[in-house]
């Protein structure tokens, strides 16, 4: 099978007046269609840089990023919800379409359908300040899905939330991604989240980042992220990846 996204020899150097820092040394990674790949690594290892480069927010220093087909749309879900306080929930979700000049009756109805499907229908015409943190983050996901991206990039999408909301929402997001049939790359520092949500876990080394190891996650009875956490394989993966991360204080 041909990968939907192929990253080769990726390198990123940051420059400032005090010198340069190599954030990403040499990353090779293939992403296949409809899989959910989690990227974990020690903090500050360049996980977010990787997503920023993929989504064209930052330029790469070297290497190639190639997509299976032309005009692949990427959807980037940021760590914080970044909802515009002066726009309603629906207007917030339409902003990507407005910018791509693809807002019409059809695409608008698709967004309304998404909002209705994922329990935000009644808040459509409310403003973000009347929503809870978990709901705001769900709106952010739908805003990302609105442009119908081929690949979703999720940058620690749950880290700003409290623990309970986080568990519940990661279940939700998992369902949404699978139901909409999306390919997704999830960056997280939470190993449990990575293992329970994803099909593969990519472990990065300390800065400058390279790929240390890739785990294929198999559960004997794979289910929702919440239930996956109770599988016996879960702890085995957790221990292995924890050792790979090589955390020293």
């Amino acid at each position: 099978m041909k990968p939907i996204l192929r990253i080769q020899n990726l390198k990123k150097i940051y420059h400032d007046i005090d010198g340069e820092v190599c954030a990403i040394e040499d990353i090779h990674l293939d992403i296949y269609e409809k899989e959910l790949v989690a990227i974990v690594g020690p903090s500050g290892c360049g996980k977010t840089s990787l997503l920023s480069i993929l989504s064209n927010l930052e330029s790469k220093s070297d290497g190639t990023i190639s997509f299976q087909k032309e005009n692949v749309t990427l959807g980037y879900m940021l760590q914080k919800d970044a909802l515009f306080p002066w726009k309603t929930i629906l207007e917030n979700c339409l902003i990507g379409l407005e910018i791509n000049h693809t807002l019409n009756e059809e695409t608008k109805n698709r967004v309304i359908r998404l909002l209705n499907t994922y329990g935000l229908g009644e808040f459509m015409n409310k403003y973000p300040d009347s929503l809870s943190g978990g709901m705001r983050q769900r709106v952010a996901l739908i805003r990302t899905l609105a442009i119908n991206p081929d690949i979703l990039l999720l940058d620690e999408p749950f880290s700003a939330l409290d623990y309970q909301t986080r568990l519940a929402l990661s279940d939700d997001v998992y369902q949404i991604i699978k139901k909409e049939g999306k390919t997704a790359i999830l960056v997280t520092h939470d190993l449990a989240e990575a293992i329970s949500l994803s099909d593969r876990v990519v472990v990065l080394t300390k800065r400058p980042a390279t790929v240390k190891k890739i785990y294929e996650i198999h559960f004997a009875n794979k289910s929702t992220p919440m239930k996956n956490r109770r599988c016996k394989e879960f702890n085995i993966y957790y221990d292995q990846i924890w050792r790979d991360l090589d955390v020293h204080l």
Partner: protein
Amino acid sequence: MSTYSLEHKEFLKKRKRNRLLVMTCQILIIVIFLIFWEFASRCGMINTFLSSSPTKVFQTFLSLAKQNQLWSHVGITVYETLLSFILASVIGFLIATILWWNKTIAKIIDPYLTVLNSLPKVALGPLIIIWVGANMNSIIFMALMISTFITIINIYQGFISTDHYLITLLRSFNAKKYQIFLKLIVPSNKNNLINCLKVNISMSLIGVIMGELLVSKKGLGYLIMYGSQVFNINLVITSVVLLGIVSYFMYEIIIFIEKKADRN
């Protein structure tokens, strides 16, 4: 209509009472001041030749109105102020936009902006008259010198303090710079822009009066200057009172715009 709890009724009553109190006090202050002023001038406690009196101000006001001079003087000052206000707002907004667009230009002209803004413009008065001419253009120019730079600085400051995270969001959708400007920078700076208008209108009025004091044949600034030259204190004080009324109404216009913008 739904019936409110007793506590809520009490709350509404309290609010109403407080508003009534504020308004009564506001009116009382001006009335007491006027009475005291009138009384003092009639008893000879103050010299009416130097400090006039409310009746004399009122008489001057009436005679100005009778000679059809009232509206022409007030009108010309209002006209000049509004003209420089609009010009300064538009120029300020445009230049602030250019500076936001191109950080290098912003860095280059930053020290010049600071110097031009803090320079006491009245020092330029004679030069402006020589360069621009002894006419209304000088007055507008003076007002623009006073109001434009501060407008540029304030609007630009607002633009660059827009939440970077929201800019990142738009960039993740591949937004072009003009889209970021129209969809994020302008709407998120709405309050700041209105505040700039508030500052700008009073700056424009200050500038216009300053210009009129230097060079003019009409306007409230001219009346004040003329009055002081012929030692007609009644005329000077009447003009100052009129100026106060004009600035109050201009402020109210901005408040009106603010409320209108808030609703949208």
